[in-house]
């Protein structure tokens, strides 16, 4: 087993090395990363993209050569060059700087909106799923009613209610995804509730609060974490879609979607990098989050483990050719 590529190798002493699995087994996070790299290389790649995105977001001010709205009037629509790595836009702003600041904006919106949505989903999903009965009935009808409207139409109308702006987008996306996500939390609560250990806790006289906190919540954490990652990607896409329509985060904020918006379309014919670059940034970010999320789901959901479906015609691989002669010779029995 090679140890060079794993993060554990960096922190471990060089001399006698126990097998990788044993060393990683001691630390949950390192163990998880090790398994991620070995079992799901694409997921590890996605995780690397996520980390990169996060770091870009945090250190945007350091990385970006210019402010996101720094106008260089003489350098309008310059193609990529040594000075402007990714060119400039119609106002002469450095596209690279805007992409980097855009990453920051995406990270902020994604984390804030997703966290909000997860809290909403968890509260509705867990209470509705565990208590059931009338409360569940009513809340599910409300969720049904809400969910029969297309997301984007709710978003458009809601933005027109609250007006465009960063916090508005965060609140709306958080609410929107929170309500639809409550379905997923609820259904996992319903399945966890079926488990005999919940019955055991009830029959031993544990209080409802204890059951919810000690038994239900820890056991629905896996789907909630998975929901979190898928929602991150969905939030980034939804925010950029809104900004693309001119309804999300208003200019001059450097939203990737806004940079692609219809207003700037006429310039894109002259300067195609204006159209290509934000799209590539978006695609990479969403791709990375999706890949990481998929890997996470496969590793957290034991049902998906070893999902090999195999054909029921077993391969026969013998080192020796089989011999009819053996049969004729009469196997000693």
């Amino acid at each position, binding site marked *: 087993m090679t140890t060079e590529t794993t993060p554990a190798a960096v922190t471990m002493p060089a001399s006698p090395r126990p097998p990788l699995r044993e060393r990683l087994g001691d630390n949950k996070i390192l163990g998880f990363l090790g398994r991620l790299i070995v079992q799901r290389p694409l997921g590890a790649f996605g995780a690397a993209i996520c980390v990169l995105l996060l770091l870009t977001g945090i250190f945007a001010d350091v990385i970006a050569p210019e402010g996101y709205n720094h106008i260089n009037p003489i350098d309008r629509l310059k193609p990529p060059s040594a000075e402007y790595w990714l060119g400039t836009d119609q106002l002469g702003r450095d596209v690279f700087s805007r992409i980097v600041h855009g990453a920051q904006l995406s990270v902020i919106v994604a984390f804030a909106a997703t966290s909000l949505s997860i809290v909403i989903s968890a509260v509705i999903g867990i209470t509705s799923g565990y208590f059931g009965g009338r409360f569940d009935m009513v809340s599910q009808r409300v969720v049904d009613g809400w969910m029969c409207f297309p997301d984007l139409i709710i978003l458009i109308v809601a933005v027109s209610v609250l007006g465009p702006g960063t916090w508005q987008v965060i609140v709306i996306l958080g609410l929107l995804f929170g309500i639809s996500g409550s379905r997923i939390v609820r259904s996992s609560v319903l399945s966890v509730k079926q488990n005999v250990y919940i019955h055991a806790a009830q029959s031993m006289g544990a209080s409802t609060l204890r059951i919810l906190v000690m038994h239900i919540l820890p056991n629905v954490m896996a789907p909630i974490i998975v929901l979190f990652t898928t929602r991150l990607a969905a939030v980034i896409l939804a925010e950029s879609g809104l900004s693309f329509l001119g309804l999300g985060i208003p200019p001059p904020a450097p939203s990737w979607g806004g940079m692609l918006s219809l207003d700037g379309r006429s310039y894109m014919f002259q300067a195609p990098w204006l159209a290509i670059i934000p799209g590539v940034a978006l695609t990479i970010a969403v791709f990375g989050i999706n890949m990481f999320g998929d890997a996470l789901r496969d590793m957290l959901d034991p049902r998906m483990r070893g999902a090999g479906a195999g054909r*029921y015609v077993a391969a026969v691989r013998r080192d020796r050719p089989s011999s009819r002669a*053996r049969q004729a010779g009469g*196997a000693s029995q």
Partner: protein
Amino acid sequence: MSDTAVSQPLDQSEEMPVTDPADALLQVENLHTVFRQGRRAINAVNGVSFSVGRGETLAIVGESGSGKSVTAMSLLRLIPSPPGEIIDGDVYFDGRNLLDMSEDELRSVRGNEIAMIFQEPMTSLNPVLSVRQQLAEPMRVHRKVKEENIEARCLDLLRQVRIPDPEARLDAYPHQFSGGMRQRVMIAMALACEPRLLIADEPTTALDVTVQAQILELLKDLTRQHGSSMILITHDLGVVARYADRINVMYAGQIVESGTALEIFENPRHPYTLGLIASMPRLDAEEKARLKPIEGQPPDLGNPPAGCAFHPRCPFAKPQCREQDPPLEPYRGNHLKACWVNVDE
């Protein structure tokens, strides 16, 4: 069902079909099946040899993980692949080696000359196809039965397995049947082409005792009627005692003892067989009699102990047992055991 189905007479050893290997219907030699999990390989079946005579009922008993089901599945290569793989052995059915067959040849044996009944009647029938559709399939594939005769043949099969009101049940779907009735449908399906060998993999594990008795009596009657052989896979020693002519006891992927039902129950030669019989709760026991369990846990097949796989749990273990894996050798006639120890000592 013959109203009072009396089991076979005691002097079965004389009446029992002769199992001369040359005349055996099925002859398995040195079968090895592994399942690969990443870099780990689990030796589910680890060198199994046995034969099944014509008209004979052979039971394979063992606890979960002993490899009894995998052995049965390997005969027809019904091992999902990947992750499963047969890495050694021969399976001669009527002189033809099933493990050398092409997929097409193999298909003409499956469901035709050798049929299977599975453990879970609840999940082994396709929920979206009617009983008629599923029952007719083997006949269409193997027997080219004319379309106009299929219905009559299906009804006949349902009658054979004693499903009441077959006309009404023919177009029903599996979820409309009880567990016992589904297992009857499975049996009807298996019998559709009058196979010469029937492999029943824990056919009654999921069922109640009275239903179990019905199903097993039915299987006994039908195999006898058609003169077919049967391999009965089970973990229940009681079932074995009632229905088997010969018994293979499996532990950790190997046969540890093989013999007639009387030989195995009255003169067990392997410590595992001995322990299994002693630990079995019995209906005819003394009141609240204490059971004698086999201490310890079954081995991890991905990392089996050296030597005899049973030695860590064996009260008779000698130093030799830790080092060398005992071969399956005759103890007396066709009574075989794989053990270095003489349990009488």
